[in-house]
Structure formats: C-alpha cells, structure tokens
C-alpha cells in the first residue's frame, strides 16, 4: 500500500466514524502541522491553539474532501493561514517589536531567520521531509535501523563492519540493501 492509499484508507475510516482512523490521521499530520506552526514565530500558547484549530478544521473538511492526495497540501495551507491570522491577532494586542525594551534597539522579535528559505519553498520542503519521514517510519525494522545508522552525521557514522554486526547482516549485503532502501525512499518522494 503506498502512502496516498494509506491516507485514503484513513479518510474513508474517519468518514465511517472510526475513531482509530481519526487518531491515526492526527498522528499522521501532527509533525507536519507542528513544524509549520513552529516556523511562524508564535509563542507556545498561540502555537497550541493554532495546532488545535488546524485539526478542528480538518475534522470539518473531511466529509467533503474528494481528493485525499491533496490533503497534505491542504493541511499545510491551513496551518500557515491559521498561524498568520493568529500572529495578526497577537500583533493587535501586543507590541511585537522590542522597541520598548531598552536593550533591544528596536530589533524585530520575529526576526527568526530560520534558514533564509522563501516561505513557499520552505513549506513545500517541509512537505517533502514529512513524506520522507513517513516513508522511513514505514520501513521494516531492520531497514529502518540501517537508515538510522547510515543517515546519522558523518562523524557519528559507524563503520560498515559495525553496522553489519549490529544488524546481523553480511558486510557484502549492506551496499545492495542500502541501495534498495534509498530507492524505496526516493520513490516515496516521487509519489
């Protein structure tokens, strides 16, 4: 079952009143919504409100949803929009610059400068990361362990011999296995 089929199954389950499907759908999108909300510079209280609002909207949106393959984009758009609105509301009530702070010299409090990505790029990049993370989570345990060992930073990466020993595999089979796993993850991004 590919990722979109799984999403479709969850949507169908939710529509049929299956609470487990709704919980799984929340689990499926929680990381993505959290990542979007965190990038918008909200405080914890506002971020929690936006997080909840996004899932309330998703809940209302599901009965009329026709194309689950676009659900991820809808979630991201809604999270971004709700976060912007929350930020607007906060700006009406609280000074969002530190101009009043003697030490700040007027530095904007929102100057997050996360990674200099333009917002749209950043959000589609997030969607890609979320898709990839989900694909990694769905790998069978040994393949996932291999990914975790291979994907860690270079200075922390174990030699092939140690990885093979820990996974109970022959050193010679690590290369082909790695290639198969990477191909599977690559396909998940293209899906």
């Amino acid at each position, binding site marked *: 079952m590919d990722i979109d089929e799984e999403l479709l199954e969850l949507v169908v389950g*939710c*529509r*049929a*009143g299956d*609470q487990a499907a*709704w*919980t799984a759908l*929340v*689990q499926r999108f*929680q*990381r993505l919504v*959290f990542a979007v909300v965190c*990038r918008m510079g909200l405080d914890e209280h506002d971020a*929690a409100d936006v*997080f*909840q609002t996004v*899932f309330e*909207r998703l*809940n*209302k949106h*599901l009965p009329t*949803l*026709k*194309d689950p393959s676009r659900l991820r*984009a*809808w979630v991201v*758009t809604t999270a971004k*929009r709700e976060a*912007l*609105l929350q930020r*607007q509301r906060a700006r009406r009530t609280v000074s*969002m*610059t530190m101009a009043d702070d003697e030490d700040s010299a007027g530095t*904007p*409090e*929102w*100057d*997050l*400068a996360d990674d*200099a*990505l*333009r*917002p*749209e*790029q950043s959000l589609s*990049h997030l*969607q*890609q*990361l979320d898709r*990839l*993370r989900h694909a*990694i989570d769905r790998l069978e345990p040994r393949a996932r362990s291999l*990914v*975790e060992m291979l*994907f*860690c*930073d270079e200075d922390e990466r174990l030699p092939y011999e140690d990885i093979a020993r820990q996974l109970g595999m022959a050193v010679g089979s690590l290369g082909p296995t790695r290639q198969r796993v*990477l191909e599977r993850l690559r396909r998940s*991004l*293209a899906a």
Partner: protein
Amino acid sequence: MAPLDSPSDDELMALGRQAMSLPDAPAHWVRRAADIGVPEPERPWKSLVGDLAGAVVNAVSAAVIRQIHAALDFDSWASPASATGMRSMPDRTRHLLFSAKGRDIDVRIIPVAERYAMAGQVLGSDDFGTVELVHRPLPGSDDGESHVSSLDELGEFRFSGLRQGTVSITLRLGNDEVLLPSIDVGERRV
C-alpha cells in the same frame, strides 16, 4: 531548499537526516486533537432530510443574493520585510488574507516572467463556487477584462497571465456574493 524530484543518494541522505530530526508535537497537543473525535458520519435519513430541507431553502432563497464585502486581514507588503521574520531576501510573492462572514480567502500574487499569476483558496464550508476577476490596466477605468474560474474541491482558484493593473474579485458562493477590495497587481512599491 526547493523540493527535489529525483535526489542523488547524497541529497537523499541529507534530506533523510533532516526528516529524521523533525520533532513530534507535544503529546498533550496530539491527544487534544485526537479527542476532537471523528467527523459525524452521514446517515441516510439525515442526508435525505437535509437534502429536502436544502431544496426548500434553496427554492425560497434562490432569488435572494447576499452581498458581502470582505475585509483585508493581512497584506505581506504592508509589513516591513524584516518584520515577517520569514526570509532575509525580498519576496516578490505578495500574500493577502481576507475574511468575509465565516469565510477566509487566502490570495497570493506571484510574478511569472513579465506577467503575474494569482492563486487563492477559500476556506469555509462552501463546496462549490465561482470566482470572477475583472482586470483593469488603469485604476478606475471602465474597460475591464473579465475572467471566470471555478473553485476546485479544496476551494482553490487560479488566474494566470495577468498584466500589471488593478483587479476586482467577486466570489459567488451559494447565495452569497463576496466582494474583495481592489487589489493592485504589479511590482512592490516601496
């Protein structure tokens, strides 16, 4: 970083490292969202009654069109670029948010070569609707060029190939006619 369609092994591993480091939302946030519960399943009798009631209401109110003027809630060009806190380079995409009696309308104007594309999304309870865009090369002129588009199932709409000028947008959603304030299309004026 733009999304990669066919990353090399090294790029994929770099993406994988980033993906593995995406944090989970706090557990109590997730629990609270799960507690919202499943959307109420549609029951046949309820659907039938709803359809009949809807038909009666539609018949009675078909001739009554409610006109709503949307309010501008956010304009990315109205904020100093640094205050958005989201980029260090100037962004040529303009982002506007409007609200209109329970609906929110998200509009983005994106420069494409010498022209502009406008993409939007209506967030509300409407399943269907149309969007009429009237483009005027000069503000206030009468000779506008009209384009009509339908909302897709996510409430999204798109117009492309727009020239610099002013656009008026009217959304027809059920018996509501939502009018957006005029929007200037063009380069940012500092």
